[in-house]
């Protein structure tokens, strides 16, 4: 423990007078507290804050590893540590894995392989090894033992009359002459009663008070905390913003709360006095916290543990305050000065007041003990009884076991507890997934290419790497085999601050880790500026009507007018929106296009020189020629698009529009920072069409034919619309090429929509592709639809390589497909750039889905149905709950929780050299937050990474590679996950 020069000894503190609450002699002025204590506090709080969810306001949803605070530890350790801290689940339940085993999703060989990789030891020499014991506990699996019902099982069910039916033949032979009753008695005789764990020290007053008085202090202090914080960070829901907000949460609260008339909730009456005293002494947040720690008698050595526990008790709000403190620009409308220290000060003030009220003082809670969990005496006997049956240890053997042997046995049994079994089952579960992907992939690569390549493709289409684009890419190539698709991170190398003509402010369209330095603006073309003016004035008028009706329907007098006199007008939108959503949306669109003129626009992205740097934002207006060249090259280079481009190259950004969905942004493009990537694609195409840029690219070895034209576009992954931009600029000569591409895109999006619809139970199976499109469009406009799309749900693989590796394979929208041409990248530069972007992005997505799935209430935000939008920053359950972070049940319900498997088309040495050069990627890989395999670009053999520099070649071929004539023929009528298949439109040959 660090020594601190205290004005008084801690011992004297413990019997501190109980009269006054937050006054101490040394805190008159902030400076009276030694600065190193303040320094230590800040340090501790910074560290504690890592454990809070890193989710900002929900309007921009960024996927990231839910356990980012634990990423420096290996995955298997981190999930257990986090489970303990957050009281969450590390893996799926044992029943879920056993169900998967029963349906063949986990095979016995997976469990054997998993156990083979773990250390083995003799338990009973010649009879039982650790591996044998564990195998028996996993296959067929232990019987669920529950202390309460064991005696019932003994008396009423068949526990004592028959051995378990599932035990294997060897065990059955060993138990042949034995009876269950004898075995139970032998177990009961051998098992020593477990000594009760010592009573634990409470970490925070709440635990102590709960144990001692049966009162949950969190239920007392959370409602006012939530209401205050909610009102403080509110971005525009409340008609009357909190006064004094500019003074910060703590001071505003202190000035507002203790009014003479105010009546406080039970047990919190002392708050007014506490606030008045703090205010009188003009204490800042740090002084309040330091004082509180002293009053609560928390020693500096315990600060960290204590503060973490206090903060994670209300993680959502604390996390939001932290996020807004670190980056105030995250606030969508009103920038409020947030401070976690102030939040903590408020929390501790309330804690002390409630504690004082309940226990009469503020320090005795330290001497309370939290009773250890009750140990049921029958449970260890039942476990041994079960294990003895599974491993074939008869009652005689058990009785005859020497003491040392029995100790080893019960220790091993204890070590292979439920958490350990779930860990082993999870690894087996992931192993099967790995083999389901890699074996078909290697079989596919071993086949001769489907068709000899034409000299020149009809078109090329660059999509985002997003796994949701996998189906449309496959469909596009199925529709028109002369089109090839590519995958690049959806911001297409253009990190920009962008504002369209309809946007009020610029927003960053790039990965969150990047701060854009360049501004790009959309503006009406010269002769259309008057149309734009008209449009904007109409929109302003519309906005003031909408705003007026929103505000007035809720207030007193205007509300009277709008409900009593105009209320019946709501009937039409209400009935139509609910009963005929798609028709209503089309009607609205029609009205929009009739009354809201749309000007032709262009992007303003060419730099006039350094002078154009904006003084306030520091953004450069547009890009210089070399910058443009670099950005175009950063996409075309790694994808291997060095020469011989098709006449039309389509670049499609993506996003998602859905109604009544607070999590809408979670479906947008992650590479665009949780926003829609249309402008990036448009900008990319515009840059690539510029002759000077092409000139510059030539110097980099990228030779774009003169007759190649780039077209930018936007794909909405929810309603599967595709818009192409700047079609007026397409040269006359390319119109027919474009028409062909457009036609293929339309067919492909309908096919892709149909494929998506198969996952929705609400969609009736139908072989007509048009029904799928209609279904997903309706879904996007349906007011009551909690799953407008499944988003990244089911993502599980990222394949980094040439399209040849995957073209014609059905990945069931589960694979991120990243274009990377290894033979054209001898120095691994492109590989470093590609992996540096895709591992954190795809890894983050995969881990967020993993955690939100395995513990939807703990890591995710539970079901969407009771969600209540609060402050325009997040959702909470009911009227005063914690902010819910993570993903809702409806977004993850069909997910398979596996860590993402990266398959990189290169050699093990090359990929490791790239990853180990980057600390972040090394952390991801070496701590096993992702899985990695390589596929050799030359001979196609596959190597799987096993950690610590160990590689293992893929062997075995138990997974088939089915063939189907089309995607629709393969998935039709099926709703479950489908294995990788080969789509081959040629008449199926005998395979």
């Amino acid at each position, binding site marked *: 423990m660090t020594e601190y020069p205290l004005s008084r000894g801690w011992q004297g503190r413990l019997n501190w007078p109980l009269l006054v609450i937050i006054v101490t002699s040394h805190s008159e002025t902030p400076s009276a507290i030694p600065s190193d204590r303040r320094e230590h506090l800040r340090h501790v709080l910074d560290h504690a804050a890592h454990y809070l969810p890193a989710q900002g306001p929900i309007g921009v949803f960024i996927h990231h590893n839910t356990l980012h605070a634990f990423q420096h530890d290996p995955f298997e350790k981190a999930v257990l540590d986090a489970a303990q801290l957050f009281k969450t689940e590390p893996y799926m339940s044992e029943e879920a894995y056993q169900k998967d085993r029963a349906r063949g999703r986990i095979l016995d060989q997976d469990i054997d392989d998993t156990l083979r990789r773990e250390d083995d030891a003799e338990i009973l020499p010649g009879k039982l090894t650790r591996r044998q014991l564990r195998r028996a506990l996993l296959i067929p699996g232990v019987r669920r033992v529950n202390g309460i019902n064991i005696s019932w099982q003994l008396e009423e069910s068949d526990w004592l009359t028959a051995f378990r039916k599932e035990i294997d033949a060897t065990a059955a032979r060993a138990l042949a002459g034995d009876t269950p009753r004898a075995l139970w008695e032998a177990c009961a005789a051998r098992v020593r009663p477990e000594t009760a764990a010592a009573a634990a020290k409470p970490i925070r007053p709440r635990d102590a008070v709960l144990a001692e008085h049966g009162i949950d202090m969190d239920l007392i202090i959370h409602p006012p905390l939530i209401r205050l914080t909610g009102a403080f960070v509110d971005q525009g*829901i409340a008609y009357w913003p*909190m006064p004094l907000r500019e003074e910060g949460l703590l001071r505003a609260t202190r*000035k507002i709360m203790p009014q003479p008339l105010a009546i406080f909730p039970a047990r919190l009456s002392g708050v007014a006095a506490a606030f008045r005293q703090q205010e009188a002494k003009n204490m800042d947040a740090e002084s309040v916290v330091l004082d509180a720690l002293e009053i609560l008698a928390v020693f500096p050595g315990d600060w960290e543990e204590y503060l973490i526990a206090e903060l994670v008790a209300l993680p959502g709000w604390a996390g939001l305050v932290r996020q807004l403190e670190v980056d105030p620009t995250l606030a969508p409308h009103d920038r409020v000065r947030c401070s976690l220290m102030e939040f903590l000060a408020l929390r501790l003030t309330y804690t002390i007041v409630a504690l004082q009220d309940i226990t009469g003082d503020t320090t005795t809670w330290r001497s309370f003990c939290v009773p250890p969990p009750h140990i049921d005496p029958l449970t260890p006997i039942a476990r041994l009884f079960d294990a003895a049956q599974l491993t074939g240890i008869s009652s005689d053997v058990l009785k005859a076991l020497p003491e040392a042997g029995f100790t080893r046995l019960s220790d091993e049994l204890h070590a292979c507890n439920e958490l350990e079994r779930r860990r082993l089952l999870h690894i087996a579960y992931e192993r099967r997934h790995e083999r389901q992907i890699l074996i078909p992939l290697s079989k596919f690569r071993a086949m001769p290419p489907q068709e000899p390549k034409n000299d020149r493709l009809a078109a090329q289409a660059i999509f985002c790497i997003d796994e949701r684009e996998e189906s449309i890419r496959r469909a596009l190539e199925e529709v028109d085999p002369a089109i090839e698709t590519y995958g690049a991170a959806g911001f297409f190398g253009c990190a920009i601050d962008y504002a369209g003509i309809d946007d009020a402010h610029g927003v960053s369209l790039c990965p969150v880790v990047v701060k854009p330095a360049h501004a790009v603006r959309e503006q009406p073309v010269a002769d259309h500026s008057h149309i734009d003016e008209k449009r904007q004035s109409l929109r302003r008028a519309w906005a003031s009507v909408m705003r007026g009706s929103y505000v007035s329907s809720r207030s007193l007098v205007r509300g009277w007018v709008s409900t009593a006199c105009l209320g019946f007008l*709501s009937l039409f939108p209400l009935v139509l929106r609910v009963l005929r959503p798609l028709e209503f949306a089309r009607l609205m669109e029609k009205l929009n296009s009739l009354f809201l003129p749309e000007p032709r626009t262009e992007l303003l992205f060419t730099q006039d020189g350094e002078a154009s740097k904006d003084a306030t934002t520091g953004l450069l207006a547009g890009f210089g020629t070399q910058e443009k060249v670099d950005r175009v090259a950063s996409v075309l280079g790694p994808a291997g698009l060095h020469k011989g481009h098709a006449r039309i190259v389509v670049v499609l950004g993506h996003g998602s529009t859905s109604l*009544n969905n607070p999590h809408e942004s979670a479906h947008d493009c992650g590479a665009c920072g949780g926003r829609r990537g249309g402008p990036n694609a448009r900008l990319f195409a515009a840059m690539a069409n510029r002759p000077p840029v092409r000139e510059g690219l030539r110097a980099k070895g990228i030779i774009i034919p003169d007759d190649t034209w780039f077209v930018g576009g936007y794909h909405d992954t929810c309603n599967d619309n595709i818009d192409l931009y700047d079609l007026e600029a397409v040269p006359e000569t390319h119109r027919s090429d474009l028409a062909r591409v457009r036609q293929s895109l339309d067919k492909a999006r309908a096919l892709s929509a149909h494929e998506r619809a198969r996952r929705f139970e609400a969609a009736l199976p139908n072989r007509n592709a048009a029904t799928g499109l209609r279904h997903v469009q309706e879904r996007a406009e349906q007011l009551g639809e909690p799953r407008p799309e499944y988003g990244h749900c089911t993502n599980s693989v990222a394949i980094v390589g040439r399209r040849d590796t995957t073209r014609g394979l059905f990945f069931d929208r589960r694979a991120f497909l990243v274009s990377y041409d290894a033979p054209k990248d001898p120095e691994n530069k492109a590989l470093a750039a590609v992996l540096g972007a895709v591992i954190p992005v795809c890894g983050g997505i995969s881990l967020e889905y993993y955690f939100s799935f395995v513990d939807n209430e703990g890591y995710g935000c539970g079901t969407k149905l009771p969600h*209540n*939008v609060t402050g325009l920053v997040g959702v909470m359950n009911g009227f005063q709950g914690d902010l819910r972070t993570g993903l809702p049940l409806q977004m993850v319900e069909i997910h398979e929780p596996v860590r993402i498997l990266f398959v990189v088309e290169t050699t093990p040495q090359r990929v490791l050299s790239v990853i180990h050069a980057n600390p972040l990627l090394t952390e991801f890989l070496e701590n096993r937050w992702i899985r990695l395999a390589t596929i050799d670009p030359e001979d196609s053999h596959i190597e799987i990474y096993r950690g610590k520099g160990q590689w293992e070649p893929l062997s075995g071929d138990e997974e088939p590679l089915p063939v189907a004539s089309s995607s629709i023929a393969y998935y039709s009528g099926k709703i479950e996950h489908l294995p990788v298949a080969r789509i081959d439109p040629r008449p199926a040959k005998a395979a």
Partner: protein
Amino acid sequence: MSLSALILTLVAVPGSLFILLSLLWLLGVKLPERAMSRLTKGAYAFLTLVTFVIAWRMWQSGQHSIRISIGDHWFKVAHYEFPLTLLLDRLSLPIVGITVILAGIVGSFSVRYLHRDPGFFRFFLLLHLFTFGALLVFMADSLDVLLGGWEIVGITSVLLIGFFQYRPDPVKNALRVFATYRVADLFMLMGVFLAHHWFKTASWNGMFNGEWPGHINNLNGTAATVVAVMLVFAASGKSSQGPFCGWLPRAMEGPTPSSAIFYGAISVHAGAYLLLRIEPLLHSSAIATGLVIFIGLTTAALGTLVHRTCADAKTSLAYASQTQLGLIFAEIGMGWTTLAILHVVGHALVRTLQFLRAPSMLHDYHRVHAAAGGHLEPTGEHYESLLPKQTQIVLYRIALGRGFYDAVVDRFIIAPVVAFARFLGVFEFRGGKP
């Protein structure tokens, strides 16, 4: 079909749907979602059609009210009688129409919204029961029948607040609402009881003369005032007014569609309906009239004050509803009956749409914000800025404390009652020993 058969069908359909579905449930039959969805949509389409046919026929035949007796003398002890009679007149018809339309809309919405939820079946079961109860309230011809519907609406409301029964908060808040309802229903029971006791009748027929509107009050004197006051408090309980004004935000724990149909559309307006029905009785007593206006105006004032500071979508809507309900109460007190009906219907429609769209708030706000050019007129500068700074803060404090309603109830009502109950516990025998 005769008009009375149609009217009976109107009540019988949701009631028998509930009974049928609960029997299926008890028998362990798993009705697929799709079947439930068809059944619900079909039933409400049918009910809406029936309502329109009834309205059309009544208009055609110039009938202003129809009474249907199901059993007039089925129960008789001394002078106590509970005739089972339904009444459809110019007051109940619009409200019944709104009820079946909105319940149908919310039902269709919920088919999608609750898809795959483990409580799917339970939700629809309760929705049908609620419709049955609400129709009974609006078509009752006596306080007795109304009370039956009233209780059904109350219990379904509570069960839907506690819909997510595996989390403690919804259950706790449901219990709280339940307790509030019980206290308010006590007034209702007393009112019914006293009406029977003093006036030997609790049916509209006995209490009033003539057709609504313009029916004449038959009851007089202090006794009538007492009955009226009891019923005013009962109505306040259902509509979250006056002494019962704090429960509405707690009711937001349930799924969004149930918030819409109960607290935006139908259930909260049942209190206003009761007052409209007994309007001549109210106006026969200055005390009762004054009480309704007082309750309405004070609740509206508090509601609008609190609403101004609510930072979440559903609480904000709850207090906005409460505000308008207060105005409706005041209108009824003033005798502006037609206006009050218009207000009820308009308000129900507006709030249903707003509740159903509540999850869109983020989306809508950003769109409007962008369309307005990134700058929205700041709100809260209307009356607020006219007040001195300190008064503003005091008002804000009151609003943030939600009028201190919960604190007062917790500390000065619940705590003493609990303490008293603990004290009574002393007299209980424990552990077999005296």
